[in-house]
Structure formats: structure tokens, C-alpha cells
């Protein structure tokens, strides 16, 4: 029976091909998303990596003296190369400042890779869709062609078949989740350094307040385990919805709603305590510990840290796991019963519904609010404020944010950046060719760091955008994507 179900899922229902397609899409998504980094590191990666190679690991006296010496040397250097190196060094130095407060639990390390893997808790939309695509037909496929009635009249077509189907879905969920995790780990590992598995978790400054005394490798293992457990639960929930709704479209609708909506309601903490798989599928937040943000007090006399993520203590985590296990077991029980055609009596149904309703109401009405904010480091480009060609002498006035072209023959000055309805930004450099004056403008409009380069035709003064590194896609997938 196991073999038949396995073959049906992976071959007859194109499960293998679907999985490969989803994995390929996820790989592309991971590549496009990139890794957590700062501008200072991205622009001076070689310098940053060389510093890291020298000082990575636990702090000791030699490293501290070398760091101080480098700090002094860079502070007294004026060259352009030294300034670039200083930007990268300051990243390391900031980490050193953090690490020296507790050297035994905080090591120096390249945080980018592990931050990418451990500090995000958005919904993995492709994993959810893949699980639904694989799991929904397991029960609904038979309901849609009325084969379930035939099967239920067979000797092994009742409880045994339901159990095999559930096992198949659970195993599928484990395989799919591990493959997705593997793809993400592989791509992040190829992009940035993922060493430091044995370092304490608190080496990552994001985990400063985490109550767990784990290594980074153990923490990642725990997150993967959570996600696997969440995926198994999600598969079981899909089975549960399948046997109750009996319709593919309803099951898919309910599955998507259950997996997406907890990410949107309330704050990011809510999903971790709701008795739904969304928290375990995200996984990382259970290890975070309380996160805070500075806020003024009521009379604006001092700044206090306000909790924006309450954190889940190890005891609470165990309690939640027990609750989740209980819900999972209840779902398994009712899935099998419903599939074989037995209905729960009112004495069972009403208390369960009441408990779930009370639980949901409690968590909708409690919690804390706010969001984390990413730190940004700004760099400055080299200045070029003058240019000329056969017809014009062109000057950039960075104070006025204007570019004037003075005609060599007539002496007439023409303003080149004329539009009163252009994006807001500071012009910091110009480059002039015989036909065009290009100017680079740093975005100050608040849509994200980046540069626009505009070209002004010096014959008819038309202006066009020739390059943009400003992140201009405002899609946040209705708040699901951070």
C-alpha cells in the first residue's frame, strides 16, 4: 500500500516534477534576495574579509592590541584606500565593542550568512505552496472522482489507508522542508562565509538577549527541526482540511489562509503562539529572545527600551511544543475518524471548539507591537563637479543642487536639471561628453539607498534616466515580505 501511495504522489500526480520546479524557483529567489549586509561591507568586502581572517574567533589580548593599533593607524591615515578600509574596519570594530562585553559568549565573526539564515521570520511562500501542491491531492484526488467510497469498502481502505496516507504526507513534508533548507544553506554558503558553527549563538549581536546557551550550529539545527515539525504539522492540517472540506479548492483556500494570515495579523510575535503551523514554519523567533527599541517615556524626559518582540522563554517554548503536539494529535485522530466515516459526538466537538475559540481570542487580544529597524551605513563617492565639451563649460553647484552649462560662444548660462517635478536627491557628480551631460544623484526621497544617473542632451536639453540603483519596487506582498 505504501508503495502504491508513494508512486501515486511522486509519479502519477507529477509530485517529483513539481518539487523540482519549486526548488528551482526557491533557488532563484534566494539568489535574488541576497544576504544581509551593509553598504560598508559590500563596497569593501576584500578588506572586511581580510580583517575577519585575522581576528575571527574568541577575543584575546593579542587580537585586542592589534585591533587598537589598526584603529589608531586608520584614524591618522588620509588616503582614499585608507578611508575605504576604515569603513570596513569600523564594522569589525563595532563587533569588537559588542564582543568585549562578554568575550566568552561573544566571538568575532562574519555575521552576514548566519544573520540571513537566523534573523528572518517571514513566510516561506514557495515551501507552503509546494507542500499544498503535493499534499492536497493525496485525499482530495480521490474525493474528486468519488474513489473514496470504493476504497472505504475495501479491507485495508479505511483506517490503514488513512494512516498510510498521513505517513506519506508527513514523510513528504520532511523531505521537502529539508531540501528547501538545503537549497537555502547552499546558496547562502556560496555567497558568504558560513563558518563559525561552533561559536556561541550570542556572537551574533541580534541574539544578544537570547536565553539559549547554544552554539550557532545547534541553533540552526533547532530552527531546521522546528521548520520540519511545522511542515509535518502543516501536512497533517492539510489532510485534516481535506477530509473535512473534501474539495480541492476549499482545502487549498483554507491551507493558504492558515499559513499566510498569522503573519499579517497583530505583530510578528503572535504567529509563534497561535496553535497553527505558521510559527514553527518560521522557526527562528523561538530563539530570538526579547527585542527592544528605544522610545521616549510619557513626559519625554528619558529614553526607554520598549519591547517590540516579547521573546519566548525555554519554558514557554516547551509548553507551546506540548500544546502544538496535542493539537497535532487531535487533528490526526479526527482526520482518521472522519476519513473512515465516523463523526465525533457533540460531547467531544463542543469542548474542543470552545477551547480553541478561547485560545484564539486570548492571543488576538494580547501582545506587543512594533518593528525591527535595519541599520544603514552611508558611504560617499568621489566628487566631480566640473566638465566641458566643445560648446559648453559645465559646473555643478552641490550647495544649490544645480548644474549650469555656459555656452562658450554666447556666454549664456543654461540650467540643465530643470524639471521641478523630479525625484528628490542630491547631485554629487557630473560627467560630460560631447553630446550629453550625465549627472549622478543620491536618492534622498526615503525609498531606499541608491543612485540615479540622468543624461541631459546638450542639443535639445531633453533629460532621460540612464541608470538606477534605487530600489524602486514597492511590492511588499500585502505585508508578508519584509
Amino acid at each position, binding site marked *: 500500500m505504501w508503495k502504491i501511495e508513494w508512486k501515486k504522489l511522486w509519479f502519477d500526480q507529477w509530485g517529483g516534477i513539481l518539487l523540482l520546479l519549486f526548488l528551482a524557483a526557491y533557488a532563484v529567489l534566494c539568489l535574488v534576495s541576497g544576504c544581509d549586509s551593509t553598504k560598508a561591507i559590500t563596497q569593501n568586502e576584500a578588506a572586511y574579509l581580510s580583517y575577519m581572517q585575522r581576528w575571527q574567533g574568541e577575543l584575546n589580548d593579542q587580537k585586542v592590541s592589534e585591533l587598537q593599533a589598526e584603529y589608531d593607524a586608520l584614524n591618522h591615515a588620509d588616503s582614499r584606500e585608507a578611508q575605504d578600509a576604515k569603513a570596513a574596519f569600523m564594522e569589525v570594530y563595532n563587533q569588537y565593542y559588542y564582543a568585549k562585553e562578554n568575550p566568552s559568549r561573544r566571538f568575532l565573526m562574519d555575521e552576514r550568512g548566519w544573520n540571513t539564515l537566523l534573523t528572518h521570520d517571514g513566510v516561506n*511562500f514557495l515551501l507552503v*505552496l509546494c507542500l*499544498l*501542491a503535493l499534499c*492536497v*491531492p493525496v485525499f*482530495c*484526488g480521490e474525493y*474528486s*472522482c468519488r474513489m473514496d467510497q470504493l476504497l472505504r469498502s475495501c479491507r485495508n481502505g479505511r483506517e490503514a489507508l488513512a494512516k498510510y496516507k498521513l505517513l506519506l504526507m508527513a514523510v513528504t513534508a520532511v523531505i521537502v522542508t529539508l531540501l528547501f533548507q538545503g537549497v537555502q544553506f547552499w546558496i547562502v554558503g556560496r555567497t558568504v562565509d558560513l563558518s563559525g558553527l561552533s561559536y556561541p549563538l550570542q556572537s551574533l549581536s541580534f541574539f544578544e538577549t537570547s536565553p539559549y546557551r547554544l552554539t550557532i550550529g545547534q541553533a540552526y539545527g533547532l530552527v531546521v527541526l522546528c521548520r520540519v515539525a511545522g511542515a509535518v504539522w502543516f501536512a497533517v492540517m492539510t489532510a485534516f482540511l481535506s477530509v473535512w*472540506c473534501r*474539495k*480541492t*479548492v*476549499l482545502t*487549498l*483556500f483554507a491551507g*493558504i*489562509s492558515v499559513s*499566510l*494570515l498569522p503573519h*499579517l*495579523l*497583530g*505583530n510578528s510575535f503572535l504567529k509563534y503562539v497561535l496553535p497553527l503551523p505558521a510559527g514553527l514554519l518560521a522557526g527562528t523567533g523561538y530563539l530570538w529572545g526579547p527585542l527592544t527599541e528605544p522610545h521616549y517615556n*510619557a*513626559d*519625554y*524626559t528619558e529614553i526607554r527600551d520598549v519591547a517590540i518582540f516579547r521573546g519566548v522563554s525555554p519554558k514557554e517554548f516547551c509548553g507551546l511544543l506540548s500544546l502544538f503536539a496535542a493539537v497535532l494529535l487531535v487533528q490526526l485522530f479526527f482526520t482518521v475518524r472522519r476519513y473512515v466515516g465516523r463523526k465525533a459526538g457533540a460531547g467531544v466537538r463542543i469542548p474542543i471548539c470552545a477551547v480553541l475559540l478561547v485560545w484564539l481570542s486570548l492571543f*488576538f487580544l494580547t501582545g506587543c*507591537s*512594533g518593528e525591527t529597524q535595519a541599520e544603514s551605513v552611508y558611504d560617499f563617492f568621489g566628487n566631480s563637479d566640473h566638465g566641458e565639451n566643445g560648446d559648453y563649460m559645465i559646473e555643478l553647484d552641490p550647495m544649490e543642487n544645480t548644474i549650469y552649462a555656459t555656452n562658450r560662444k554666447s556666454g549664456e548660462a*543654461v540650467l540643465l536639471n*530643470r*524639471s*521641478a*517635478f523630479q*525625484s528628490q536627491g542630491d547631485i554629487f557628480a557630473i560627467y560630460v561628453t560631447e553630446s550629453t551631460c550625465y549627472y549622478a544623484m543620491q536618492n534622498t526621497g526615503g525609498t531606499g539607498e541608491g543612485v*540615479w544617473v540622468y543624461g541631459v542632451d546638450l*542639443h*535639445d*536639453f*531633453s*533629460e532621460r*534616466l540612464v541608470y*538606477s540603483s534605487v530600489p*524602486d*519596487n*514597492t*511590492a*511588499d*506582498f*500585502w*505585508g*508578508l515580505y519584509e
Partner: protein
Amino acid sequence: MKLLYLEARKGILRRSVLIALILFLCLDILKIGLDYRAGEIREVIGNTEGMQAGFAEIYDKVKGPITNETAAFLVGEYRRLSQAVADGTYSRKPQEGTYSGYIYGDYFLIGSYFYSQMSYCVQYSMRMAERLEQERENLKLYQSVGNKSMAAKCSYILQHYADRSISSFYLMDSWESLLQFDFSDLLILLLLILGVAASFTREKETGMTMLLSSSRYGGWPMLASKCGVAISYAIGLTILFSVLNLTVYGVLFGLQGWDCPLYAIEACQDTPFGGTVGQFYLLSCGMKAMGFSILSLLLLLMSACFRRTLYPCILGVGAGAGASYLAGWAASPVWWKGVLAAVSPLTLTRAWNLWSCLCGDWIGNIYFPRITLVLLIQLVLVVGMLWAFKFLLVHAGV
């Protein structure tokens, strides 16, 4: 009409869809309520009771038509409080005669919520006149050098931005939040998948297609009724959620300011839309209805292409996510991103992005707003989908 009703009975007027709709309407209210309570729409709501009372008192004094008295009151209070907190020696203890209970609290309230907004309203017409003067000079220059495309843009600006002024003062943060609120868009998308994605596959799974295709109304009339129902469903959902959102926001914040021009919202100071905020809300709802109607036709097409319900559902979610991503480029200044955004039906649900700034394109020497490009491409998309339906029907031998 009978066919329409029968189709609606099959896909939409079902218990499961109606229950999901009611649940999602409740979720929508809950989401707005939670955002409201957390101070995400109006920050002062998340502040102390004293601050809220102070806010209400000041707002009552200054809202309404802008007069010399209201402007002078705000300027006077701002100057007085700025001087009081300038040297840092002000009292940190509760004070009698203050709005919020504290001197700094008053300074914070006036500075953050009222003074800058009032100065924006008062100075808007003057600043816009200066910018238009610049555009007039630009027009002369471009005409003198024969640059017709840039001259066309200048003419468009001069035509759409002339004679602007803001005569009333209202805090527009609630309108700004309502116009950008897109949680209900996700709920509508999910409900569309639930109601439309199985329109054809349901019949294929039960073997009813053969029966239907042999009947008199099984060809074009059936297809037309399915399309009609899908479009009506999308429009109905959009209206329902739009009315609900407006009602909830109205209950929480009031609807004051609906007759202010859209550019009274500071984030929309460069909008080419000359109508009021209320008119813009109607426009954005109409655009949403159009976008979701086209998306529902796309879901219907997917349903017609597959034999099993699973695939149009999964593809529908994928298409929704992809369309949402492309719609993120709705106001991008990069031309190819603009074209990609115009391909996405969900770009029509982003009226805010399309209209809050001057966002346009050229074809030759003609300058037109981005929305025109979006509508043109969506029209082509609809014609393409109808052609695809015809191809599928012919292929199925109907």
C-alpha cells in the same frame, strides 16, 4: 440572466464561500482595529491618555477652513513652546494649563502633528506657483530648441497643476492609511481563487463538460455567463471591502477631509489628480474593481486550461504573487519596469502609487500618464484572454 444565476450558484453562492467571506470581513475589521490600537495609523493613539486628550483639544481648535486665527494660533503656540524647551530647562513635571499635561508633550504634539502640516497647507499654492513658473521657462526653452517631447511634458504639467490651493486644514493621516490599505486586496485575491479557480475544472472532474458541450447553451453562452459571474464577483468583493474599509476608518477617525483636494496629503503633493480625496477613493476603488476583474478572467482561463482544480489554484496564488511583485514597479522611472508593471492586473489596485506623483511615459512626442499605458496593456490582455477562451472552446469542439 438565468445562466448567470446558475453559474453563480455553482461557484459563488455556496455556503463555504459565504462563510469564508464573512470570516474575511471580520478579519479585515480586526486588522484595521489592531493597526489602530498599535498607533500605526495615527501615532498618538498609541500614546498616553494625556497626549491623546491634548491632541484632541488642539485638533478641535485648528481643524476646518484655514483662517488667520487658526494659523496665528499654531504659529504662536509653536514659537512659545520652542522657546520654552530650547535651553532644556523646562519643567519635567506635570503642568497646569498645558494640553497634554507636560510642556514637552505640547511641543511634541504641535511640532509633529500640526505645525508642519499647517505650514504645508498654507505654503502649498505659493510653492506650486514657483514650480509652475519654472516649468513655463522650461517650456519656452524646449520649444526654442525644437524638443517636442519635453515640451509636451511641460504642457501637461502646466495644464494639470495650475490654480492649486488648500483652503481647509485636516489631518490626512487616516485617509493616507486608508488609500494605501492593501490587506483587503489579499483577502479579495484569496476569495477570487476560492470562487473562480474551479469554474471549469469542477465540471471536468465530474465529467459534466461533455454533457454541457452537447447542450444548446453549453458553448459561448456558458462561457459568457462564467465570465460575467467572475467579473461581477470581483466587482462585488471590491465594493464590499471598500465600503467596509471606509466605514471602519470613518468610525475610528471620522470622514473629515474627504472634500479636501488629494494634494492636501503631503505625500501626494505632486499628484496630477486634481479632484478631492473622496473622489480619489472612488477612483481607486474603480481601478481595483477593474484589476480584480481582469485577474478573475485570468483565473478562469487557468481553470479552462487544466483538468484538475489543484493546478489553477496553485498557479492562481503564484500569479497573484508575481502580479503583486510586478505591480511594485508601478511608479518606477525605469521604462522597462514600467512596462512590466503595466502587464500586471494588480497594478490597477495601486492607484496610490500611480497617482501620488507625476508618473508618465512618452510615445514619440506624446506625453501621457502611466495609468494610460496600464489601461492599454490591460485591454490587450483582456482581448488576448477572450481569444484564448475561443481557441479552447473550438479545441474542445464546442
